[in-house]
Protein backbone atom coordinates (compact mmCIF):
# COMPACT_ATOMS: atom_id res chain seq x y z
CA UNK A 1 0.00 0.00 0.00
CA UNK A 2 1.29 3.44 -0.94
CA UNK A 3 1.58 6.26 1.58
CA UNK A 4 -1.88 7.56 2.50
CA UNK A 5 -3.06 10.79 0.86
CA UNK A 6 -4.44 12.19 4.12
CA UNK A 7 -2.71 11.11 7.29
CA UNK A 8 -3.85 12.39 10.65
CA UNK A 9 -1.93 11.68 13.84
CA UNK A 10 -2.70 12.61 17.43
CA UNK A 11 -5.31 15.16 16.41
CA UNK A 12 -6.74 17.07 19.36
CA UNK A 13 -9.28 19.85 19.15
CA UNK A 14 -11.04 22.04 21.68
CA UNK A 15 -13.67 24.73 21.80
CA UNK A 16 -12.37 27.05 24.49
CA UNK A 17 -11.85 24.86 27.54
CA UNK A 18 -13.86 21.94 26.25
CA UNK A 19 -11.71 19.26 24.72
CA UNK A 20 -13.63 17.46 21.98
CA UNK A 21 -11.00 15.33 20.23
CA UNK A 22 -8.52 13.50 22.43
CA UNK A 23 -5.82 12.62 19.92
CA UNK A 24 -7.20 10.61 17.02
CA UNK A 25 -5.30 8.87 14.22
CA UNK A 26 -6.70 8.01 10.82
CA UNK A 27 -5.71 8.00 7.20
CA UNK A 28 -7.31 7.95 3.76
CA UNK A 29 -5.57 6.67 0.63
CA UNK A 30 -5.68 8.69 -2.56
CA UNK A 31 -8.93 8.26 -4.46
CA UNK A 32 -10.67 6.49 -1.57
CA UNK A 33 -13.92 7.35 0.10
CA UNK A 34 -13.67 7.23 3.89
CA UNK A 35 -16.62 7.54 6.22
CA UNK A 36 -16.69 8.64 9.84
CA UNK A 37 -19.49 7.21 11.95
CA UNK A 38 -20.41 7.90 15.52
CA UNK A 39 -23.06 9.09 17.89
CA UNK A 40 -23.99 12.74 18.31
CA UNK A 41 -21.23 14.59 20.13
CA UNK A 42 -18.58 11.99 19.32
CA UNK A 43 -16.52 14.65 17.51
CA UNK A 44 -17.27 13.87 13.84
CA UNK A 45 -18.03 17.44 12.77
CA UNK A 46 -15.13 18.70 14.86
CA UNK A 47 -12.80 16.32 13.03
CA UNK A 48 -13.76 17.83 9.68
CA UNK A 49 -13.52 21.38 11.06
CA UNK A 50 -10.10 20.58 12.50
CA UNK A 51 -8.82 19.54 9.08
CA UNK A 52 -9.73 23.03 7.77
CA UNK A 53 -8.35 24.92 10.78
CA UNK A 54 -11.83 26.03 11.77
CA UNK A 55 -11.10 25.05 15.41
CA UNK A 56 -7.90 25.25 17.39
CA UNK A 57 -6.03 21.97 17.09
CA UNK A 58 -2.94 20.07 18.09
CA UNK A 59 -1.37 17.15 16.27
CA UNK A 60 -0.34 16.41 12.73
CA UNK A 61 -2.43 16.59 9.55
CA UNK A 62 -0.48 15.55 6.47
CA UNK A 63 -1.93 15.98 2.98
CA UNK A 64 0.19 14.26 0.32
CA UNK A 65 3.08 14.50 2.74
CA UNK A 66 2.68 18.23 3.48
CA UNK A 67 1.85 19.40 6.98
CA UNK A 68 -1.47 21.30 7.13
CA UNK A 69 -1.57 21.83 10.90
CA UNK A 70 -0.79 25.43 11.76
CA UNK A 71 -1.84 26.71 8.34
CA UNK A 72 -4.79 29.04 7.92
CA UNK A 73 -8.09 28.00 6.42
CA UNK A 74 -7.58 30.09 3.30
CA UNK A 75 -4.24 28.39 2.64
CA UNK A 76 -5.59 24.91 3.30
CA UNK A 77 -8.34 25.59 0.75
CA UNK A 78 -5.64 26.59 -1.72
CA UNK A 79 -4.08 23.15 -1.19
CA UNK A 80 -7.28 21.68 -2.65
CA UNK A 81 -9.34 20.86 0.43
CA UNK A 82 -13.05 21.61 -0.02
CA UNK A 83 -15.43 21.41 2.92
CA UNK A 84 -19.21 21.21 2.78
CA UNK A 85 -20.31 22.21 6.28
CA UNK A 86 -23.39 20.80 7.87
CA UNK A 87 -26.63 22.49 6.85
CA UNK A 88 -25.53 26.00 5.89
CA UNK A 89 -22.97 25.57 3.16
CA UNK A 90 -24.24 28.16 0.72
CA UNK A 91 -24.32 31.96 0.49
CA UNK A 92 -28.06 32.62 0.82
CA UNK A 93 -28.00 36.21 -0.50
CA UNK A 94 -25.95 35.31 -3.57
CA UNK A 95 -27.38 33.77 -6.74
CA UNK A 96 -26.74 30.13 -7.59
CA UNK A 97 -24.28 31.21 -10.27
CA UNK A 98 -22.45 33.50 -7.84
CA UNK A 99 -22.28 30.68 -5.31
CA UNK A 100 -20.45 28.55 -7.84
CA UNK A 101 -18.14 31.41 -8.74
CA UNK A 102 -17.40 31.94 -5.04
CA UNK A 103 -16.57 28.22 -4.85
CA UNK A 104 -13.91 28.80 -7.51
CA UNK A 105 -12.65 31.87 -5.68
CA UNK A 106 -9.05 30.69 -5.45
CA UNK A 107 -8.91 29.49 -9.07
CA UNK A 108 -7.90 31.74 -11.90
CA UNK A 109 -7.70 29.23 -14.76
CA UNK A 110 -9.93 29.61 -17.82
CA UNK A 111 -11.88 26.41 -17.16
CA UNK A 112 -14.01 27.78 -14.33
CA UNK A 113 -16.87 28.49 -16.72
CA UNK A 114 -16.75 24.98 -18.19
CA UNK A 115 -16.75 23.47 -14.69
CA UNK A 116 -19.81 25.48 -13.68
CA UNK A 117 -21.65 24.26 -16.79
CA UNK A 118 -20.62 20.72 -15.98
CA UNK A 119 -22.17 20.87 -12.51
CA UNK A 120 -25.30 22.47 -13.95
CA UNK A 121 -25.54 19.32 -16.10
CA UNK A 122 -24.92 17.02 -13.17
CA UNK A 123 -27.47 18.89 -11.03
CA UNK A 124 -29.98 20.13 -13.62
CA UNK A 125 -32.14 21.82 -11.00
CA UNK A 126 -29.27 24.21 -10.25
CA UNK A 127 -28.98 25.04 -13.93
CA UNK A 128 -32.64 25.96 -14.03
CA UNK A 129 -32.23 28.31 -11.08
CA UNK A 130 -28.85 29.84 -11.72
CA UNK A 131 -30.22 33.39 -11.42
CA UNK A 132 -32.18 32.77 -8.20
CA UNK A 133 -30.70 33.50 -4.80
CA UNK A 134 -29.50 30.44 -2.93
CA UNK A 135 -31.74 31.29 0.00
CA UNK A 136 -34.81 30.74 -2.16
CA UNK A 137 -33.91 27.12 -2.92
CA UNK A 138 -35.32 24.14 -1.05
CA UNK A 139 -33.19 22.35 1.53
CA UNK A 140 -32.23 19.57 -0.88
CA UNK A 141 -31.39 22.01 -3.64
CA UNK A 142 -29.24 24.01 -1.25
CA UNK A 143 -27.37 20.86 -0.25
CA UNK A 144 -26.68 20.11 -3.93
CA UNK A 145 -25.56 23.70 -4.41
CA UNK A 146 -23.23 23.44 -1.41
CA UNK A 147 -21.65 20.31 -2.89
CA UNK A 148 -21.40 21.82 -6.38
CA UNK A 149 -19.90 24.93 -4.78
CA UNK A 150 -17.25 22.74 -3.10
CA UNK A 151 -16.55 20.84 -6.34
CA UNK A 152 -15.89 24.14 -8.13
CA UNK A 153 -12.58 24.20 -6.28
CA UNK A 154 -11.56 21.02 -8.18
CA UNK A 155 -10.67 19.63 -4.78
CA UNK A 156 -8.20 16.85 -4.25
CA UNK A 157 -9.85 16.18 -0.90
CA UNK A 158 -13.58 16.71 -0.36
CA UNK A 159 -14.93 16.86 3.19
CA UNK A 160 -18.67 16.31 3.49
CA UNK A 161 -20.50 16.89 6.78
CA UNK A 162 -23.79 14.99 6.82
CA UNK A 163 -24.72 15.52 3.20
CA UNK A 164 -27.97 13.62 3.71
CA UNK A 165 -29.23 15.83 6.55
CA UNK A 166 -32.81 16.85 5.91
CA UNK A 167 -32.98 15.22 2.49
CA UNK A 168 -35.63 12.78 1.30
CA UNK A 169 -34.30 9.17 1.04
CA UNK A 170 -34.63 9.17 -2.75
CA UNK A 171 -32.61 12.33 -3.10
CA UNK A 172 -30.02 11.07 -0.64
CA UNK A 173 -29.52 7.92 -2.66
CA UNK A 174 -29.09 9.78 -5.91
CA UNK A 175 -26.73 12.22 -4.21
CA UNK A 176 -24.51 9.37 -3.05
CA UNK A 177 -24.61 7.84 -6.52
CA UNK A 178 -23.37 11.12 -7.92
CA UNK A 179 -20.66 11.34 -5.29
CA UNK A 180 -19.36 7.86 -6.16
CA UNK A 181 -19.47 8.79 -9.83
CA UNK A 182 -17.43 11.94 -9.17
CA UNK A 183 -15.02 9.89 -7.08
CA UNK A 184 -14.60 7.34 -9.87
CA UNK A 185 -14.41 10.01 -12.54
CA UNK A 186 -12.06 12.60 -11.05
CA UNK A 187 -10.37 10.45 -8.42
CA UNK A 188 -11.37 12.92 -5.70
CA UNK A 189 -10.52 11.63 -2.24
CA UNK A 190 -13.52 12.02 0.06
CA UNK A 191 -14.06 12.03 3.80
CA UNK A 192 -17.73 11.80 4.70
CA UNK A 193 -19.43 12.22 8.07
CA UNK A 194 -22.79 10.55 7.87
CA UNK A 195 -25.68 9.50 10.07
CA UNK A 196 -27.08 7.16 7.45
CA UNK A 197 -24.52 4.50 8.20
CA UNK A 198 -25.78 1.75 5.88
CA UNK A 199 -25.76 4.08 2.89
CA UNK A 200 -22.36 5.51 3.77
CA UNK A 201 -20.76 2.10 4.38
CA UNK A 202 -22.18 1.01 1.03
CA UNK A 203 -20.15 3.58 -0.89
CA UNK A 204 -17.09 3.90 1.36
CA UNK A 205 -13.78 2.10 1.12
CA UNK A 206 -12.73 2.58 4.75
CA UNK A 207 -14.64 3.57 7.86
CA UNK A 208 -13.80 4.99 11.27
CA UNK A 209 -16.10 4.92 14.26
CA UNK A 210 -15.64 7.77 16.73
CA UNK A 211 -16.67 7.51 20.36
CA UNK A 212 -16.24 10.42 22.77
CA UNK A 213 -13.46 12.00 20.77
CA UNK A 214 -11.47 8.84 20.13
CA UNK A 215 -11.33 6.29 17.32
CA UNK A 216 -13.14 3.24 18.68
CA UNK A 217 -13.11 1.07 15.57
CA UNK A 218 -11.65 1.25 12.11
CA UNK A 219 -11.27 -0.92 9.06
CA UNK A 220 -12.46 -1.56 5.52
CA UNK A 221 -16.06 -0.47 5.13
CA UNK A 222 -17.39 -3.90 4.15
CA UNK A 223 -15.77 -5.51 7.20
CA UNK A 224 -17.28 -2.92 9.51
CA UNK A 225 -20.64 -3.33 7.85
CA UNK A 226 -20.45 -7.00 8.76
CA UNK A 227 -19.30 -6.36 12.33
CA UNK A 228 -22.00 -7.26 14.82
CA UNK A 229 -21.29 -4.36 17.18
CA UNK A 230 -21.35 -1.80 14.40
CA UNK A 231 -24.51 -3.33 12.97
CA UNK A 232 -26.26 -3.17 16.31
CA UNK A 233 -25.08 0.33 17.17
CA UNK A 234 -25.26 2.11 13.84
CA UNK A 235 -27.13 0.03 11.31
CA UNK A 236 -30.01 -1.01 13.50
CA UNK A 237 -30.36 -4.72 12.57
Amino acid sequence: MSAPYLEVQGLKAAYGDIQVLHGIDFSVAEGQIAVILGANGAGKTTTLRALCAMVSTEGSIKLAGDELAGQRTADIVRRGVAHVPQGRGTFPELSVEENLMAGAFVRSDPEVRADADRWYETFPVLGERRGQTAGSLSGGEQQMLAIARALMLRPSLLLLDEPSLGLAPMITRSLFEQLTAINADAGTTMLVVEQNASLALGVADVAYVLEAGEVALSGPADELAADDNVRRAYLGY
Partner: protein
Amino acid sequence: MGVLASVLGVFDITLDKLSDGELWLAQFFRGLSDGATYASVALALVMIYKSTGFINFAQGSLALLGVYLAYIFSVEQGLPVAVAVVCAMVASSAVAMLVERVFIRPFPPDHVLPLVIVTLGLLLIIDSAVGIVWGFRTRSLPSMFPSGAPIEWGIAQLTWRTIGNLGTVFAVVGLLYLLLSRTKVGLAFRAVSSNLESARLVGIRVGPTLGFGWALAAAIGTLGGALVVPDLLLEPSIMLRVLIFSLAAAALGGLDSMVGAVIGGLVVGLARNLLVTFLDLSELALATAVAVILVVLLVRPTGLFGSTRVERV
Protein backbone atom coordinates in the same frame (compact mmCIF):
# COMPACT_ATOMS: atom_id res chain seq x y z
CA MET B 1 -61.06 73.04 18.40
CA GLY B 2 -59.31 75.28 20.83
CA VAL B 3 -56.72 72.58 21.36
CA LEU B 4 -56.16 72.20 17.64
CA ALA B 5 -55.80 75.94 17.21
CA SER B 6 -53.25 76.13 19.96
CA VAL B 7 -51.30 73.19 18.51
CA LEU B 8 -51.26 74.93 15.14
CA GLY B 9 -50.29 78.12 16.91
CA VAL B 10 -47.37 76.39 18.55
CA PHE B 11 -46.10 75.16 15.24
CA ASP B 12 -46.76 78.53 13.68
CA ILE B 13 -48.29 77.14 10.56
CA THR B 14 -49.35 79.83 8.20
CA LEU B 15 -51.46 79.11 5.22
CA ASP B 16 -49.45 81.59 3.23
CA LYS B 17 -46.41 79.44 3.53
CA LEU B 18 -48.20 76.23 2.71
CA SER B 19 -49.68 77.64 -0.48
CA ASP B 20 -46.38 79.06 -1.67
CA GLY B 21 -45.40 76.76 -4.53
CA GLU B 22 -41.98 78.28 -5.00
CA LEU B 23 -41.14 77.73 -1.36
CA TRP B 24 -42.15 74.11 -1.70
CA LEU B 25 -39.93 73.68 -4.71
CA ALA B 26 -37.04 75.51 -3.10
CA GLN B 27 -37.22 73.27 -0.03
CA PHE B 28 -37.62 70.23 -2.23
CA PHE B 29 -34.33 71.01 -3.94
CA ARG B 30 -32.58 71.76 -0.68
CA GLY B 31 -33.96 68.56 0.76
CA LEU B 32 -32.58 66.54 -2.13
CA SER B 33 -29.21 68.18 -1.69
CA ASP B 34 -29.07 67.46 2.05
CA GLY B 35 -30.52 64.02 1.47
CA ALA B 36 -27.72 63.17 -0.92
CA THR B 37 -25.17 63.85 1.79
CA TYR B 38 -27.04 61.78 4.37
CA ALA B 39 -27.32 59.03 1.77
CA SER B 40 -23.54 58.89 1.36
CA VAL B 41 -22.82 58.46 5.05
CA ALA B 42 -25.76 56.04 5.32
CA LEU B 43 -24.20 54.00 2.51
CA ALA B 44 -21.00 53.79 4.51
CA LEU B 45 -22.91 52.61 7.60
CA VAL B 46 -24.78 50.02 5.54
CA MET B 47 -21.56 48.64 4.07
CA ILE B 48 -20.18 47.93 7.52
CA TYR B 49 -23.48 46.62 8.85
CA LYS B 50 -23.94 44.30 5.89
CA SER B 51 -20.52 42.75 6.20
CA THR B 52 -20.06 42.68 9.95
CA GLY B 53 -23.52 42.89 11.49
CA PHE B 54 -22.75 45.89 13.66
CA ILE B 55 -23.13 49.63 13.41
CA ASN B 56 -19.90 51.57 13.23
CA PHE B 57 -20.57 54.55 15.47
CA ALA B 58 -17.16 55.89 14.45
CA GLN B 59 -18.23 56.20 10.82
CA GLY B 60 -18.97 59.90 11.23
CA SER B 61 -15.61 60.40 12.92
CA LEU B 62 -13.71 58.77 10.06
CA ALA B 63 -15.61 61.06 7.69
CA LEU B 64 -14.74 64.02 9.90
CA LEU B 65 -11.07 63.13 9.68
CA GLY B 66 -11.39 62.80 5.92
CA VAL B 67 -13.04 66.20 5.54
CA TYR B 68 -10.30 67.85 7.59
CA LEU B 69 -7.73 66.21 5.33
CA ALA B 70 -9.65 67.52 2.31
CA TYR B 71 -9.51 70.96 3.90
CA ILE B 72 -5.75 70.69 4.38
CA PHE B 73 -5.18 69.45 0.82
CA SER B 74 -7.36 72.10 -0.79
CA VAL B 75 -7.22 75.26 1.32
CA GLU B 76 -3.74 74.89 2.75
CA GLN B 77 -1.95 72.97 0.00
CA GLY B 78 -3.82 74.65 -2.82
CA LEU B 79 -5.02 71.55 -4.65
CA PRO B 80 -8.28 71.83 -6.62
CA VAL B 81 -11.14 70.83 -4.28
CA ALA B 82 -12.16 67.75 -6.24
CA VAL B 83 -8.58 66.46 -6.30
CA ALA B 84 -8.20 67.22 -2.61
CA VAL B 85 -11.37 65.27 -1.82
CA VAL B 86 -10.13 62.26 -3.77
CA CYS B 87 -6.79 62.40 -1.93
CA ALA B 88 -8.67 62.65 1.38
CA MET B 89 -10.79 59.64 0.42
CA VAL B 90 -7.64 57.62 -0.20
CA ALA B 91 -6.06 58.82 3.04
CA SER B 92 -9.12 58.13 5.17
CA SER B 93 -9.40 54.64 3.62
CA ALA B 94 -5.85 53.98 4.70
CA VAL B 95 -6.66 55.14 8.22
CA ALA B 96 -9.82 53.01 8.27
CA MET B 97 -7.90 49.91 7.17
CA LEU B 98 -5.38 50.52 9.91
CA VAL B 99 -8.14 51.02 12.47
CA GLU B 100 -9.86 47.84 11.36
CA ARG B 101 -6.63 45.87 11.52
CA VAL B 102 -5.60 47.14 14.96
CA PHE B 103 -8.87 47.62 16.84
CA ILE B 104 -11.50 45.47 15.17
CA ARG B 105 -9.91 42.34 13.81
CA PRO B 106 -8.57 41.03 17.14
CA PHE B 107 -12.17 40.49 18.30
CA PRO B 108 -14.19 37.47 17.24
CA PRO B 109 -16.47 38.81 14.49
CA ASP B 110 -19.61 37.24 15.93
CA HIS B 111 -19.37 39.08 19.27
CA VAL B 112 -21.16 42.22 18.23
CA LEU B 113 -21.50 44.05 21.54
CA PRO B 114 -17.79 44.52 22.36
CA LEU B 115 -17.24 45.64 18.79
CA VAL B 116 -19.95 48.31 19.06
CA ILE B 117 -18.34 49.56 22.26
CA VAL B 118 -14.95 49.63 20.57
CA THR B 119 -16.41 51.83 17.81
CA LEU B 120 -17.70 54.18 20.53
CA GLY B 121 -14.16 54.34 21.90
CA LEU B 122 -12.87 55.07 18.41
CA LEU B 123 -15.43 57.85 18.09
CA LEU B 124 -14.08 59.48 21.26
CA ILE B 125 -10.48 59.08 20.16
CA ILE B 126 -10.85 60.26 16.56
CA ASP B 127 -13.09 63.23 17.40
CA SER B 128 -10.76 64.44 20.12
CA ALA B 129 -7.71 63.81 17.97
CA VAL B 130 -9.21 66.06 15.32
CA GLY B 131 -9.83 68.69 18.01
CA ILE B 132 -6.25 68.36 19.27
CA VAL B 133 -4.66 68.64 15.86
CA TRP B 134 -6.85 71.25 14.21
CA GLY B 135 -8.47 73.02 17.15
CA PHE B 136 -12.06 74.11 17.50
CA ARG B 137 -11.94 77.15 15.24
CA THR B 138 -14.55 76.93 12.49
CA ARG B 139 -13.30 76.84 8.93
CA SER B 140 -15.02 76.77 5.60
CA LEU B 141 -14.38 74.19 2.93
CA PRO B 142 -15.27 75.23 -0.60
CA SER B 143 -17.66 73.06 -2.57
CA MET B 144 -16.48 70.78 -5.34
CA PHE B 145 -19.14 72.22 -7.60
CA PRO B 146 -19.48 75.68 -9.12
CA SER B 147 -21.80 78.15 -7.44
CA GLY B 148 -24.87 79.48 -9.19
CA ALA B 149 -27.97 77.80 -10.47
CA PRO B 150 -28.70 76.80 -14.03
CA ILE B 151 -32.44 76.61 -13.39
CA GLU B 152 -34.48 79.08 -11.36
CA TRP B 153 -38.13 79.61 -10.59
CA GLY B 154 -38.31 82.67 -8.42
CA ILE B 155 -36.75 81.71 -5.09
CA ALA B 156 -36.56 78.06 -6.06
CA GLN B 157 -33.13 77.35 -7.44
CA LEU B 158 -31.79 74.11 -8.72
CA THR B 159 -28.16 74.87 -7.97
CA TRP B 160 -25.12 73.20 -9.40
CA ARG B 161 -24.38 72.05 -5.91
CA THR B 162 -27.69 70.20 -5.61
CA ILE B 163 -27.17 68.65 -9.02
CA GLY B 164 -23.59 67.78 -8.10
CA ASN B 165 -24.55 66.24 -4.76
CA LEU B 166 -27.25 64.10 -6.32
CA GLY B 167 -25.07 63.16 -9.25
CA THR B 168 -22.24 62.16 -6.93
CA VAL B 169 -24.45 59.91 -4.84
CA PHE B 170 -25.93 58.17 -7.84
CA ALA B 171 -22.47 57.76 -9.33
CA VAL B 172 -21.24 56.26 -6.06
CA VAL B 173 -24.13 53.81 -5.98
CA GLY B 174 -23.53 52.87 -9.61
CA LEU B 175 -19.81 52.31 -9.11
CA LEU B 176 -20.41 50.44 -5.90
CA TYR B 177 -22.89 48.19 -7.67
CA LEU B 178 -20.37 47.43 -10.42
CA LEU B 179 -17.60 46.87 -7.90
CA LEU B 180 -19.65 44.49 -5.80
CA SER B 181 -21.29 42.55 -8.61
CA ARG B 182 -18.58 42.45 -11.26
CA THR B 183 -15.28 42.10 -9.46
CA LYS B 184 -13.67 39.32 -7.51
CA VAL B 185 -13.08 41.45 -4.43
CA GLY B 186 -16.75 42.45 -4.60
CA LEU B 187 -17.77 38.80 -4.73
CA ALA B 188 -15.54 38.12 -1.74
CA PHE B 189 -17.08 41.00 0.17
CA ARG B 190 -20.63 39.82 -0.53
CA ALA B 191 -19.72 36.22 0.30
CA VAL B 192 -18.28 37.29 3.67
CA SER B 193 -21.43 39.34 4.35
CA SER B 194 -23.64 36.41 3.47
CA ASN B 195 -21.95 33.52 5.26
CA LEU B 196 -18.73 34.01 7.16
CA GLU B 197 -17.94 30.33 7.63
CA SER B 198 -18.51 29.32 4.03
CA ALA B 199 -16.54 32.33 2.88
CA ARG B 200 -13.57 30.98 4.83
CA LEU B 201 -14.15 27.54 3.38
CA VAL B 202 -13.90 28.74 -0.21
CA GLY B 203 -10.53 30.28 0.58
CA ILE B 204 -11.53 33.93 1.02
CA ARG B 205 -9.24 35.75 3.45
CA VAL B 206 -11.91 37.22 5.68
CA GLY B 207 -9.80 39.78 7.55
CA PRO B 208 -8.45 41.64 4.52
CA THR B 209 -11.87 41.50 2.90
CA LEU B 210 -13.44 43.22 5.90
CA GLY B 211 -10.55 45.68 5.91
CA PHE B 212 -11.43 46.44 2.30
CA GLY B 213 -15.04 47.07 3.38
CA TRP B 214 -13.86 49.51 6.06
CA ALA B 215 -11.67 51.33 3.55
CA LEU B 216 -14.49 51.61 1.05
CA ALA B 217 -16.94 52.78 3.72
CA ALA B 218 -14.51 55.43 4.94
CA ALA B 219 -13.96 56.71 1.41
CA ILE B 220 -17.69 56.99 0.82
CA GLY B 221 -18.21 58.64 4.20
CA THR B 222 -15.47 61.16 3.47
CA LEU B 223 -17.09 61.96 0.15
CA GLY B 224 -20.41 62.46 1.94
CA GLY B 225 -18.73 64.76 4.43
CA ALA B 226 -17.15 66.76 1.63
CA LEU B 227 -20.62 67.20 0.14
CA VAL B 228 -22.24 68.35 3.37
CA VAL B 229 -19.58 70.59 4.88
CA PRO B 230 -19.68 73.45 2.34
CA ASP B 231 -23.24 74.15 3.52
CA LEU B 232 -22.13 74.35 7.13
CA LEU B 233 -18.86 75.27 8.73
CA LEU B 234 -16.16 72.75 9.46
CA GLU B 235 -15.59 72.11 13.17
CA PRO B 236 -14.97 68.92 15.15
CA SER B 237 -18.57 68.23 16.20
CA ILE B 238 -20.11 68.72 12.80
CA MET B 239 -20.38 65.08 11.81
CA LEU B 240 -22.41 64.08 14.85
CA ARG B 241 -25.57 65.67 13.47
CA VAL B 242 -24.85 64.20 10.07
CA LEU B 243 -24.33 60.81 11.71
CA ILE B 244 -27.73 60.97 13.41
CA PHE B 245 -29.52 61.90 10.19
CA SER B 246 -27.60 59.21 8.35
CA LEU B 247 -28.48 56.62 10.99
CA ALA B 248 -32.12 57.59 10.48
CA ALA B 249 -31.65 57.23 6.72
CA ALA B 250 -30.00 53.84 7.08
CA ALA B 251 -32.69 52.61 9.50
CA LEU B 252 -35.41 53.81 7.15
CA GLY B 253 -33.78 52.09 4.20
CA GLY B 254 -33.31 48.90 6.15
CA LEU B 255 -29.70 48.95 7.46
CA ASP B 256 -28.54 46.29 5.04
CA SER B 257 -29.82 47.70 1.77
CA MET B 258 -27.66 50.06 -0.27
CA VAL B 259 -30.54 51.24 -2.41
CA GLY B 260 -32.50 51.67 0.82
CA ALA B 261 -29.75 53.87 2.23
CA VAL B 262 -29.95 56.22 -0.73
CA ILE B 263 -33.72 56.45 -0.75
CA GLY B 264 -33.74 56.72 3.04
CA GLY B 265 -31.22 59.55 2.83
CA LEU B 266 -33.28 61.46 0.30
CA VAL B 267 -36.49 60.98 2.29
CA VAL B 268 -34.86 62.13 5.53
CA GLY B 269 -33.35 65.13 3.76
CA LEU B 270 -36.70 66.11 2.26
CA ALA B 271 -38.65 65.51 5.45
CA ARG B 272 -36.19 67.57 7.44
CA ASN B 273 -36.30 70.57 5.14
CA LEU B 274 -40.05 70.55 4.70
CA LEU B 275 -40.70 70.17 8.43
CA VAL B 276 -38.23 72.85 9.36
CA THR B 277 -39.67 75.30 6.84
CA PHE B 278 -43.36 74.73 7.23
CA LEU B 279 -43.55 73.91 10.93
CA ASP B 280 -40.75 76.23 12.05
CA LEU B 281 -39.10 73.37 13.84
CA SER B 282 -35.47 74.18 13.28
CA GLU B 283 -34.56 73.08 16.81
CA LEU B 284 -36.52 69.89 16.29
CA ALA B 285 -34.78 68.89 13.07
CA LEU B 286 -32.71 66.35 14.96
CA ALA B 287 -35.76 65.13 16.83
CA THR B 288 -37.52 64.37 13.55
CA ALA B 289 -34.61 62.09 12.70
CA VAL B 290 -35.04 60.34 16.03
CA ALA B 291 -38.76 60.05 15.40
CA VAL B 292 -38.04 58.45 12.03
CA ILE B 293 -35.75 55.90 13.68
CA LEU B 294 -38.30 55.15 16.39
CA VAL B 295 -41.24 54.74 14.03
CA VAL B 296 -39.28 52.60 11.58
CA LEU B 297 -37.93 50.32 14.30
CA LEU B 298 -41.37 49.93 15.82
CA VAL B 299 -43.44 49.48 12.71
CA ARG B 300 -41.05 47.82 10.34
CA PRO B 301 -37.64 47.00 11.81
CA THR B 302 -36.36 45.81 8.44
CA GLY B 303 -36.97 49.27 7.00
CA LEU B 304 -38.27 49.81 3.50
CA PHE B 305 -35.81 47.56 1.68
CA GLY B 306 -33.95 45.56 4.30
CA SER B 307 -33.96 41.80 4.53
CA THR B 308 -35.10 40.06 7.65
CA ARG B 309 -32.28 38.68 9.61
CA VAL B 310 -31.81 37.20 12.99
CA GLU B 311 -30.87 39.80 15.57
CA ARG B 312 -27.31 38.99 16.53
CA VAL B 313 -26.94 40.75 19.82
